[in-house]
């Protein structure tokens, strides 16, 4: 589904990302871990063509993302608050995204209906604009909006951060379900090793912009990751 080839990104201050090659097959739940500054968000931004690669390229379904925009209809993402429109209510925001992705109100309502649990009564019909929601609730809105329009690739940057424990558990279910049952390729980054190992079938560790581990998740993975990040 996604093929990275010779990708690098450098600023004046030096290189921030360098990935020789990486293949992510369709329907995989892919986890990206690494300390701050490891290049996780840079990688996602390159994948969404929000920044330009210094060299190399990423192909999504054989479409080179920085040359054509044809990857947009089947890709969605929630990176940070810049993916939210602060002066809309959550409902208006969902419908707006729906319209952009070719879904009508009924389609969106049907999808939202499945997430009543996840919203926990704090999102819909609250008479609040997105800018006035708490960070955690904003994140819930952003994540669900990323599911609108039957995307084939979903990119979530730090989806577990700021969420309360109940929501974290529900989100894990949602992500697993997307990859296993609907064949969606899900890319997730996280600082929480436990969450990624539970959710992702494959985990890549970035350090200073380089891939230093590429693991198929097993019972031993969490231990291995903890040992790695503890510096042993």
């Amino acid at each position, binding site marked *: 589904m996604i093929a990275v080839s010779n990708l690098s990104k450098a600023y004046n201050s030096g290189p921030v990302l360098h990935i020789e090659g990486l293949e992510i097959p369709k329907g995989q739940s892919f986890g990206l871990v690494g300390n701050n500054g490891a290049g996780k968000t840079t990688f996602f931004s390159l994948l969404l063509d929000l920044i330009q690669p210094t060299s190399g390229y990423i192909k999504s379904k054989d479409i080179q993302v920085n040359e054509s925009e044809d990857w947009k209809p089947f*890709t969605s993402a929630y990176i940070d608050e*810049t*993916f939210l429109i602060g002066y*809309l209510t959550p409902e208006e925001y969902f419908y707006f995204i729906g319209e952009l992705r070719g879904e009508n109100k009924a389609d969106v309502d049907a999808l939202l209906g499945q997430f009543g649990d996840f919203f926990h009564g704090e999102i819909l019909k609250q008479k*609040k*604009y997105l800018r006035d929601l708490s960070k955690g609730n904003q994140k819930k809105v952003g994540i669900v909006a990323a599911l609108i329009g039957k995307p084939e690739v979903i990119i979530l940057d730090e989806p577990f951060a700021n969420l309360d424990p109940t929501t974290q558990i529900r989100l894990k279910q949602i992500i697993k379900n997307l990859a296993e049952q609907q064949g969606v390729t899900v890319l997730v980054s996280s600082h929480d090793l436990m969450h990624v190992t539970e959710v992702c079938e494959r985990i890549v560790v970035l350090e200073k912009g380089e891939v230093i581990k590429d693991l198929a998740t097993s019972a031993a993975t969490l231990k291995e990751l903890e040992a790695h990040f503890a510096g042993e």
Partner: protein
Amino acid sequence: MAFFALWMIASFSILGFGAYYMIEDGLKMEPFQVVNQALIYYMVFDLVFRYFLQKMPVINIKPLMYLPIERTKIVNFAIGKTMISFFNVLHAFFFIPFSIVLIIEGFPVLQVLAWYAAILGLIYCNNFINIFVNNKDIVFFGVVAVILVMIGLQYYGVFDVTQYTYPIFKGFYAVPYLAIIPIILAVVFYKMAFSYFKKNLYLDAGLSIKHDVAETQDYSWLNRFGSMSTFLKNDLKLLRRNKRSKMTIFMSFLFIFYGLLFFTGSIESYDGPFWRIFAGIFVSGGFLFTFGQFVPSWDSAYYPLMMSQNIRYKEYIASKWYLMVIATIISTIISVFYLYWGWQAYAAVVVGAIYNIGVNSHLVLWGGAYIKTPIDLTTSKKAFGDKQAFNTKTLLLTVPKLLLPMAIYAAGHYTLGEGFGFALVAISGLGGFLFKNKVFNIIEKVYKSEKYKTLAAYKQNN
């Protein structure tokens, strides 16, 4: 903002030195008397000006609260910071030169100094008053309404408030020790601001953020515009729900009255016939210019979202274009009162509107594509000036926006008369429609080629 500040300082200094002689020679009136009469309005406008523009230091206080600093110190620091702000310093650039001129003209030094000290005290009163009226819109607009009524009554000779206020201001000069009163008043207001501030220095009191009650609106009647309606609905919400955009609407409303300067003949240098077109373009195009020049910056806060969605650029641009066209038409309808100054005045507004819709709407959007100033929708404080809005590319575009239609009109006016002049401007406006699709294509290309730079620039402030 720096450009705007320098411009204000320069004009205040020039006024400070020149006011005395301008009033004496120009109006043939006693300058000191006139200034004292005007002072009441000066003080009130200062307050209005501050209300809109002066940022309260509250925003920067939060991080100090967690540090081992006494609360009184924090409050003193915050209020002290407002005291040395541009809004207080600015007045010195008028009153110091003016006082010097007074002394040169033979007014007694001591009395002039007392008068200046009194003014200084009053300016600081304003400074502290602003601290507690900040964000109290109802009180504020009440005051503005009273002032407007006062001005109206004075203009029509019913009641002149300045007759009652000028003796007060003059009193500070005539009886120098009275100057102590405004200074004491300023100290009292400082104490009041201090206790107000201190009482509210809690996260759930003065530092809490007020939330608007949101209503979900679907504007489904806009669906007749087809797939463009997605953006149109969003743009309407953008305009209605953000402080910055409301300020823009308010300013474009003021532009409607800009033509009064020209058509009432109150300023001599604007009497040339081609100035009519200049006025006509601004009267009908206030919104077009103030809103249009910041497309796509209005969407800067969520530009990464827009760029990762499958946006149909043409519809995105068309939506903004329709907003500008509708606003231009509304402004033109409101401006019908210009007929009072002759059919030529309103004809200038109408052909100005045609030229705005046909030509300027495209140019403004084109110029906006190069402006990469992120817009903070949640504050109205920066709506007036931004130095980045004055770059060379946008400056160059004012030639076809303003000078060209004036020249076209002049060409018609001086050959076959004013009717022909108006017709020529209208025709060139209509001609602009032919290029609509072409210009939209160019703008789309600019959006695409500037995408990464724009994203990076918007990120700076987000």
